[in-house]
């Protein structure tokens, strides 16, 4: 992990209140797995860093793509950063989806809202390994949807929206009947309520979930970001033991 002032190569709104930020720097070479994140200092005005998942990597050009949604003051201030400015980034952090350690032939990816970005780099890496990828992407509405075309290029894609303005109206789990049999492992990222729904419907299937929690250090030292675990140790730190966990490892609350 390193702290680096990375250069903004691209920065634009790609959906309502959702931005693509492309950063260039040496840190890109350190990224080992899809699902890792970076910890961004927006400005001196915001005391804590903001964790954002890595959505794509271009090793050759040393760039990483982040997709973020404006959720509060820090992400709102981030939108004002301009191309060529530098940003204080700490990363890459945490354990991603362990695609090199597991044996999957057919993967189901389930993403909700701003949980979709890390699944994109995952989908790309899986496809590269010859894994068949099926994705279910859930958004609030059509104007908040993004990356659907990019996922299409990598496999079957099912889209749901809360209001029905794109794809199926309803929840990502509504579509599980349609994808039955098309996967041996699932990978999911999104709001905790979605993670709970997904894991409880897919018990029995090996699965990996990416979690969120408010962070202090982002490197494993402060114990701000813990989640209870199903073992004697009793906890995992999301920033360094996660954010990706085996679905059976942690207790969702």
């Amino acid at each position, binding site marked *: 992990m390193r702290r680096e002032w990375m250069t903004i190569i691209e920065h634009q709104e790609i959906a309502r209140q959702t931005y693509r930020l492309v950063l260039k720097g040496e840190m890109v070479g350190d990224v080992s797995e899809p699902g890792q994140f970076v910890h961004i200092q927006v400005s001196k005005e915001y005391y804590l*860093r903001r964790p954002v998942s890595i959505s794509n990597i271009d090793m050759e050009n040393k760039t990483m793509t982040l997709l973020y949604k404006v959720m509060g003051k820090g992400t709102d201030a981030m939108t004002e950063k301009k191309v060529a400015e530098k940003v204080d980034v700490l990363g890459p952090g945490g354990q991603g989806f362990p695609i090199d350690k597991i044996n999957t032939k057919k993967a189901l990816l389930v993403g909700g809202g701003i949980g979709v970005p890390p699944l994109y780099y995952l989908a790309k890496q899986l496809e590269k390994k010859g894994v068949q990828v099926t994705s279910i992407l859930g958004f609030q509405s059509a104007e908040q949807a993004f990356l659907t075309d990019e996922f299409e290029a990598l496999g079957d894609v099912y889209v749901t929206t809360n209001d029905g303005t794109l794809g199926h109206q309803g929840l990502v789990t509504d579509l599980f009947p349609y994808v039955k049999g098309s996967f041996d492992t699932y990978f999911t990222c999104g709001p905790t309520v979605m993670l709970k729904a997904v894991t409880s419907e897919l018990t029995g299937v090996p699965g990996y979930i990416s979690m969120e929690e408010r962070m202090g250090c982002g490197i*494993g030292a402060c114990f701000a*970001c813990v989640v209870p675990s199903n073992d004697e140790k009793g906890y995992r730190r999301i920033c360094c033991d996660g954010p990706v966990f085996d679905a059976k490892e942690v207790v969702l609350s």
Partner: protein
Amino acid sequence: MNLHQTLPGLHLKNPIMPASGCFGFGKEFAQFYNLSDLGAVIMKAATGEKRFGNGTPRVAETSSGMLNAIGLQNPGVDSIIKNEVPFLQEYDMPIMANVAGSTVEEYVQVAEKISHHVNALELNISCPNVKEGGVQFGTDPLLAEEVTRKVVEASVVPVYVKLSPNVTDIVSMAKAVQAGGAHGLTMINTLTGMRIDPATRKPIISNHTGGLSGAAIKPIAIRMIYQVYREIDLPIIGMGGIETAEDVIEFLLAGASAVAIGSANFKNPIICKEIIDELPVTLKKFGFQSLKGAIGGAHHETSRAGVFRA
């Protein structure tokens, strides 16, 4: 410039150390720089048994600071001695153990055990984030004196007592722990605070209240150290909002003999190392010939020379 400083139990090559709870047990920071460069390390709090701590969220952002309510999560003193201390001992710097508990007995038990493995103890009677024990020892002079006395008796190394700023009269707290036999003071711990999220209408921190740290509290830390330095003849390790070498000098001038850096490690994991490198330059810039020349300097208004302590 010679940054060396000797305090009870601690031979510091420089006066900079990470503050308890903000540096874990060092492992995470060892990937960023050589921990031997530090003046010392203060470990995360140890309790008698393993503790899971509070629910999440455990941190919240504030203006120039943060709230935390970790709730003393730690693997328990035995596990710390077995699994954490050996890693730190490989480095060339003194180690302080932060000792916490819910009862005097627990404090004593932890101190007894861990004092054999470290250079000094930091007696944490000021954690605002646990229901039993912790902060009431740090706000009641009689309780503070008692737990200090018992821990000093139980410990084979010097004991620094960590004072809580959540008190009307910091000097009387310092006097109480001095009477209890403390070898030094560390100050300040966090101020109890709260943030409420207008969207959820609830306190952001699951524990409701949390400890306020960061630059926001620096003026309170400086004031308390200044007051205590005037009245009590114990070395002070100062902390609370330090982010730069200039901040360190402000703490030294107020009366700190060394300093600890807490939440700033989260903004910049290399902060301790950077400040260690900058400190001699900054001391020189402000006309100090030595580290010790700065200590307590604000109390000697007519002379430009500081006084020596510890």
